[in-house]
């Protein structure tokens, strides 16, 4: 299992929660962003078993490593996952500072298990950290710029940027030539009679049926072209009752020039190589000054501060003018008592539902003490001793007899240890949102196991965007992308896929170090009625019907095994057989088997790790 590429996916999804990964900018406009290369970097790092200390250093300071590779720069996307406010009328500095604050808080809670966010406004009330120390950490993160990194063959990247600037130039010339502004297009659109509308190409007529703010850039461009063409007809033929604005000859020349340019543009666009890009962090050559911000207010500067780490923790190895790399190295220094404990505690949490320290992001005085302190210490020291070998730690935990216990409830324990903190048995855990979908994909046999790549658009119910400021078009993926793992579903921050949210997927606003597991009627409605899940139930029905040489009982056994990895007990098989033959369901095989498949996909056991 550890060698499977899907191991990396599984570990990565948990990490992406902490990285607050999403495919859009958040706040009100919530425009799209391209940062999936970072997501793929995380998957790859786990699959390659990149030692955890390297994993941390590259994400926090990959750009500052000597001879930084493209991969190491991609890794800095960790802190580019902060939301971005594109609203009009904002003070850009305010939101830049908010992003830096989020980077400090995330660094503290993800790597150190500390609640330093408290010190943004005042000294920590419980733990030994001052507000000044907070802003000394802030100073490490205050010197970066947030560029976009174009990826791929350097030749291609160069070619792309050359073509891109030529395109921009040509577009600009074209625009001055015909002055086709969006206002003009809008006006033209408003004045179109049904008759002239009908004369337009079908594709353009279709675009006109979409609300103005719901069109994507291609559609807008197509409309602009249509407008230009019609405009030409107006001028040259003067057939729609508009007077010629200037001499026909001059206009014909202009038209000629425009046609040439449009051809050029089309050819340029056609040659544009497809180069993916991602968001990265880059250190500024000229550092910004950092101050204590009084009351956390970015306008009220207190004392000036230089980068430094809290005094309560071991000192930095290189105290003179430390950079982000020095901070990263300090975080994974074996003398740092927190990093390894916090990391192994989260591994434990993933396998048992609750960590040895329940407050996985608070190892401070207000956190809960570990249930098994010696075990935590031992696991942490093993982690460091083995060179931060992540796969080895997974193996260590899942081969333990504690992990391999049965999860059946033991009534005699209820009074002694109701929450099973001492692990006298295993815990039953509801699957994560993405895995709920994956389990159904696997059972249906439809899963596309591809790893990585741009995010995809599986089916989602209509009406999701009735509640966003900017209406979105969700172009449901057809073909293989429709059946990708749940973790590849495009994440709009203001309107995430409802099938994910309903099963407690985090909203990517801030770092989520531990998901909650709720159990709600909306989950029932999703599994029961969502067209996406229904499609997978039909897939499962189809799959068992296509199995040769099986009778009904054999098929029920097969379907049951595909979903629950065990054979049904007689009472269970009987219930499903009754459903299969129920005349109220259907007398036809396909719908009857779909009903059986739906029942299986809705079982508590189906979405639970036993």
């Amino acid at each position, binding site marked *: 299992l550890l060698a499977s590429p899907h191991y990396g996916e599984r570990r990565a999804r948990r990490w992406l929660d902490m990285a607050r990964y999403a495919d859009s900018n958040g706040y009100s406009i919530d425009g799209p962003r391209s940062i999936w290369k970072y997501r793929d970097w995380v998957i790859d790092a786990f699959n390659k078993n990149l030692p955890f200390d390297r994993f941390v250093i590259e994400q926090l300071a990959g750009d500052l490593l000597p001879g930084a590779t493209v991969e190491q720069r991609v890794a800095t996307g960790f802190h580019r996952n902060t939301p971005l406010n594109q609203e009009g009328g904002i003070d850009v500095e305010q939101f830049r500072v908010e992003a830096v604050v989020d980077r400090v808080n995330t660094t503290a809670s993800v790597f150190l298990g500390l609640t330093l966010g408290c010190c943004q406004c005042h000294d920590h009330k419980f733990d030994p950290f001052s507000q000044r120390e907070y802003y000394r950490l802030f100073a490490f993160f205050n010197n970066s710029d947030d560029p976009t990194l174009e990826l791929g063959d350097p030749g291609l990247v160069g070619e792309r940027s050359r073509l891109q600037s030529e395109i921009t130039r040509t577009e600009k010339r074209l625009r001055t030539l015909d002055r086709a502004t969006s206002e003009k297009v809008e006006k033209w659109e408003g004045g179109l009679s049904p008759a002239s509308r009908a004369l337009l190409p079908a594709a353009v007529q279709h675009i006109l049926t979409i609300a103005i703010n719901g069109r994507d850039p291609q559609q807008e461009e197509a409309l602009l072209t249509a407008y230009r063409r019609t405009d030409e007809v107006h001028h040259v033929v003067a057939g729609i009752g508009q007077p010629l604005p200037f001499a026909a000859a001059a206009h014909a020349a202009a038209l000629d020039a425009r046609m040439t340019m449009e051809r050029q543009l089309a050819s340029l666009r056609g040659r544009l190589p497809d180069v993916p890009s991602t968001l990265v962090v880059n250190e500024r050559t000229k550092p910004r000054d950092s101050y204590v911000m009084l009351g956390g207010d970015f306008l009220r500067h207190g004392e000036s501060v230089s980068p430094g780490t809290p005094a309560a923790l071991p000192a930095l190895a290189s105290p003179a003018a430390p950079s982000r790399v020095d901070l990263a190295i300090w975080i994974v220094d074996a003398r740092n008592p927190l990093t390894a404990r916090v990391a192994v505690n989260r591994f434990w949490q993933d396998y048992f539902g609750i960590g040895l320290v329940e407050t996985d992001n608070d190892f401070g005085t207000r956190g809960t003490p570990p249930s098994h302190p010696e075990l935590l210490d031992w696991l942490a020291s093993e982690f460091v001793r083995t060179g931060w070998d992540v796969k080895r730690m997974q193996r260590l935990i899942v081969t333990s007899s504690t992990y391999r216990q049965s999860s059946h409830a033991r009534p005699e324990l209820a009074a002694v240890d109701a929450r099973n903190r001492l692990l006298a048995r295993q815990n039953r855990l509801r699957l994560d949102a993405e895995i709920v979908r994956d389990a159904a994909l696997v059972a249906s046999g439809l899963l596309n196991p591809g790893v990585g790549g741009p995010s995809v658009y599986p089916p989602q119910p209509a009406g999701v965007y009735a509640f966003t400021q900017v209406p979105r078009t969700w172009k449901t993926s057809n073909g293989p992308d429709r059946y990708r793992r749940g973790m590849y579903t495009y994440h709009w*921050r203001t309107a995430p896929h409802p099938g994910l949210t309903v099963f407690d997927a985090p909203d990517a606003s801030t770092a989520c170090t531990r998901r909650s597991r709720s159990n709600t009627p909306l989950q029932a409605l999703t599994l029961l009625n969502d067209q996406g899940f229904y499609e997978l139930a039909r897939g499962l029905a189809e799959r068992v019907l296509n199995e040769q040489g099986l009778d009904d009982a054999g098929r029920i056994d097969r379907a049951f095994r595909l979903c629950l990895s065990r054979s049904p007990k007689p009472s269970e098989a009987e219930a499903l057989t009754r459903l299969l033959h129920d005349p109220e369901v259907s007398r036809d095989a396909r719908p009857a088997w779909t009903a059986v498949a739906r029942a299986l996909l809705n079982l*508590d056991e189906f979405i639970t790790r036993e």
Partner: protein
Amino acid sequence: MTMPATPPLLALTRRHFFRECGIGLGAAALASLLNEGRAAAADPLTPKPGHHAARAKSVIFLFMAGGPSQLELFDYKPKLSALHAQPVPAEFIQGKRFAFMDTFAKEVPKLLATRRRFARHGASGSWVSECLPHTAGIVDDITVVRSMATDVFNHAPAKCFTNTGSPQFGRPSMGAWVTYGIGSEARDLPGFVVLQSGPRGPRGGNPLWSSGFLPTAYQGVPFRGVGEPILNLRPPQGVDDAGQRRVLEAVRELNGLRLADTGDPEIATRIAAYEMAYRMQTSAPGLIDLSGEDRKTLELYGAEPGKPSFANNCLLARRLVERGVRFVQLYHTDWDHHGSGDVNLTAGLDRVCRETDRACAALVTDLKRRGLLDTTLVIWGGEFGRTPMGEVRDSVGRNHHIDTYTMWLAGGGVKRGYNLGASDELGYAAAEDRVHVHDLQATVLFLLGLDHTRLTFKFQGRDFRLTDVHGEIVRKLLA
């Protein structure tokens, strides 16, 4: 409060099992588990007592998204009119920050008189402009607060602040805190419902009704006013009701067997969740079908069944509260009257007032005549107000303003026919009885029987609250 006569959840579940599922020993084991009340204890929305006696049971928050101009609606300022077109006195804007700073940086902004006529209304003598004739008619049933103040002046963070007490996304919203604190009486509907009308959704989206770090069972559930009110409410295409019921019965039976086998109370919770899902499926379509309302009621609101509107949503809000839903939030967009295009203080404001005024007043009137106003708190207002200075854009408008603005409250333990607070003579800052957003939040929780300093959730080492470390209950507006 009138509650539909639904048998208690457990009774229903047990009856189903015994009547329809004859599954022998497994059933007996399940029945005993359910009998012990574990399923009920595990239902996060079970009504719970608060910290003290509640004055309100439900909240309807009419969120006027974009920032309504108090100076055109409620805050009558003759001095501002007298100083029209004069530069704003320097001491007002010294060191202050505004949205769209660059437009103000070009030249000293000038004061802008309102073009709207104001009059006093009702026995309370409350000032309301001609824009809101219906609201003017209910002033004796409401408390108008003309001294609201907030901290942030961009839409998404300010909406987030009003809803969650923090400008940063990721905290639980008020509706989530409330249902976390006292659950919900509705057994076949979510406890926190969000409705939307206007040309587009509110800026900020999902995080505005998020449960943040609270369990997702407390997050707001968006309802649509037509078609399917809740996503995935209807069986998938190609499945009829009988077929759906049979699948549900099989699921219930198999889950019951598994429960008997493993003894995990989570399975009992899931069985209960499926029961409630089934009841939602049955009750929600009827809920949004307004055609059963009498003509007079429809006319009162200006509601037209089947045609989505703010009016329909107000009527729907009453129906939700009648069914025990704890927190209903209505968003109506397009109050952001900067004066760009037709989003201005003339035709733009007229339009949005026309869309909302009548239904807001109708809601209060309707709740009152049904005896629901005493237990329902109605809140009207946006994320901030607008500046006394005008903005130079295509037409007349005002900028975002956080130092003073107007909201109103009605019912649920709030004084009737009362005016609280006042702004200074230019309508620039709160001059009397300033009510900060955190104070409003503390007061809302208080009215629901919750102490805002004790309603906490431990997250990242800290006990978080809706009001952060602030908030004073606004005693003056309590009835």
